[in-house]
């Protein structure tokens, strides 16, 4: 191991250590990049140990920040946040949830299942993880807590369901992956559809089981008997919100807008509905835009920090370090794939999808092709691993996003414990896809293969 690689390793260790100091990860990431640039220069100048990182190199941070600014696809992020906050503040989300919950009536776990169903629908309209978690967190979490749900179960459900957005197409993660794997985005979108829905289904099964065996954790929502009046109220509550989701999904599927623009269309729709409901006061609007600013800023802040961190980590040879560790494995083809997936799962504890997609995927792409595996099948499993990485402590995007907007009493330990069963479900889902390749490969073959 070279001196530079030792620095790279120390950088990762320092990150993991400092993250637990409670200091915002955005600044830990960015700060460490600068500090380790300093170390690298000291190594070079004072000890003649080559590190290949200096201030010129680290100054490319600015070009990379510009790259984040220039990214048109990321415009969807604040728009989906805006939509979520507005649905929350205008009371539309509440009526939607209670309406749905009333429909599911005596079913134990019904409210969580409602959140899951809404989450799957949202997943089909956005590809950005922060947005879906925040939206579901604002929508579903307070309602579940109010109806006596276990805090851990409620927050775990929101996190897990929120991450489906990055697996179920459209998804920016799949777009980047397809690019790295030189494969068709369409193939990958279709390949990920069934596995994504499968995971949603597994969540629902789990929620039903919990509802059955531990009714105290997921109580049935007590509701008055269905009268004609109540049915009318329900319709009034459900129809506009359902129309809204249809507006987002519909504008994508009927070619009105790109997923980015659909986020804006959805936000405009929410604005219209809130106005019709008469809850669009200046005060509500001010709250909505300010909360959109706060939430967008911390997500983009973390992205900017990570952009600086990975630059320096890569400069010190951190990516080659990981490559060597992976390729030195003494196993057969299936064994290597399993090891890669396990390694990805473990790396996912600490790194996020962008690093893993940009660093790991290009390294293992030739290996996977040489071994003769279906690239769609493999990439979908890789995607499930990365989706899981959002849920795995200590560094899981979904956990932080939820923490950022959760009501009092739902702190990180609660969220950490809440996601554990869902991580197990993820692994079960992964095993199913591993054993049943058609789940990922059948649909792309049907849709495009013979056209």
């Amino acid at each position, binding site marked *: 191991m070279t001196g530079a690689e030792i620095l790279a390793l120390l950088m990762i260790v320092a990150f993991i250590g*400092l993250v*637990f*100091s*409670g*200091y*915002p*990860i955005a*600044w830990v990431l*960015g*700060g*460490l990049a*600068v500090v380790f*640039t*300093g170390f690298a220069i000291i190594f070079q100048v004072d000890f003649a140990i080559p590190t290949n990182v200096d*201030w010129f190199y*680290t*100054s490319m*941070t*600015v*070009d990379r*920040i*510009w790259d*984040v*600014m*220039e990214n*048109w696809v*990321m*415009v969807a992020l*604040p*728009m989906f946040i*805006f939509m979520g906050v507005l649905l929350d503040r205008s009371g539309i989300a509440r009526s939607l949830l209670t309406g749905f919950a009333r429909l599911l009536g005596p079913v134990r776990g019904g409210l969580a299942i409602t959140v899951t169903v809404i989450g799957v629908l949202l997943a089909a309209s956005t590809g950005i993880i922060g947005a879906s978690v925040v939206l579901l967190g604002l929508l579903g979490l307070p309602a579940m807590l109010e109806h006596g749900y276990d805090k851990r179960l409620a927050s775990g459900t929101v996190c897990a369901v929120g991450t489906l957005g990055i697996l179920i197409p459209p998804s920016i993660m799949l777009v980047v992956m397809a690019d790295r794997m030189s494969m068709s985005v369409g193939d990958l979108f279709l390949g990920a559809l069934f596995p994504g829905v499968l995971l949603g289904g597994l969540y629902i099964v789990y929620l039903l089981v919990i509802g059955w065996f531990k009714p105290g954790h997921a109580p049935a929502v007590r509701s008055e008997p269905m009268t004609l009046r109540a049915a009318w109220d329900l319709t009034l509550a459900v129809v506009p919100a359902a129309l809204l989701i249809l507006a987002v999904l519909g*504008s994508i599927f009927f070619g*009105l*807008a790109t997923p*980015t*623009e659909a986020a*804006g269309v959805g*936000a*405009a729709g929410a*604005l219209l509905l809130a106005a019709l409901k008469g809850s669009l006061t200046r005060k509500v609007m*001010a709250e909505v*835009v*300010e909360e*959109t*600013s*706060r939430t*967008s*800023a*911390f997500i*983009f*802040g*973390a992205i900017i920090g990570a952009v*600086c961190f990975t630059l320096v980590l890569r400069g010190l040879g951190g990516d080659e370090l990981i490559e060597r560790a992976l390729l030195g494995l003494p196993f057969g083809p299936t064994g290597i794939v399993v090891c890669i997936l396990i390694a990805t799962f473990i790396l996912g504890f600490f790194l996020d999808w962008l690093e893993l997609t940009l660093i790991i995927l290009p390294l293992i792409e030739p290996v996977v092709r040489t071994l003769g595996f279906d690239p769609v099948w493999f990439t979908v499993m890789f995607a499930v691993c990365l989706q899981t990485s959002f849920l795995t402590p*200590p*560094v899981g995007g979904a956990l932080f*996003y939820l*923490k*950022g907007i959760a009501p*009092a009493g739902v*702190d990180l330990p609660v969220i950490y414990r809440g996601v554990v069963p869902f991580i197990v479900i993820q692994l079960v889902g992964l095993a199913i896809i591993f054993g049943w390749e058609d789940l990922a490969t059948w649909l792309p073959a049907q849709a495009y293969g013979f056209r």
Partner: protein
Amino acid sequence: MRPWDTDLTGIELPETRFSRVVDQALTVIGRAASWLWVVLLAVIVVNVTLRYVFREGRIELEELQWHLNALAFLIAMAYAYRVDAHIRIDLVSVRLRPRLQVWIELYSTLLLLLPFIAVVLWFSFPFVAHSWSASEISSSPGGLPFRWLLKAVIPVAFALLLLAVASRLTRMWAYLTGGPR
């Protein structure tokens, strides 16, 4: 309680004369800039309508979308810092004594955040200057001019962030020394 109702997780920091002025200004700027999201929303709707209904694509409007997004989220960073909305993993730290927490925050700010801001600020000046001297415009057909103006938002946003940090530093110092409020 929302995370931005306190300064650090659960700790109230005393205000200082400097922080009162700066925080007030940052709040005003942050709140005003938040309305950019509504402008962004309107631009998207107009663009979609123009293209779908009138079959007229406007690359200016497409670029305006990410221009507005970049402007809004960068300016919001200082505001988010001011209200402490940046995400923390306070798993361990909430169990520590409040004074120790503030010391950790102080040192982290001095050793991590300030160097990061310094690097971005320092290197963003030549970045903007080059763009300005080359009169850089968009390379897209019909794209927007004055690209240096948007690039200049990087140093402006990080300067605002620096102000917010300075304000919090005086407040932490006041807490730790129990000095003038």
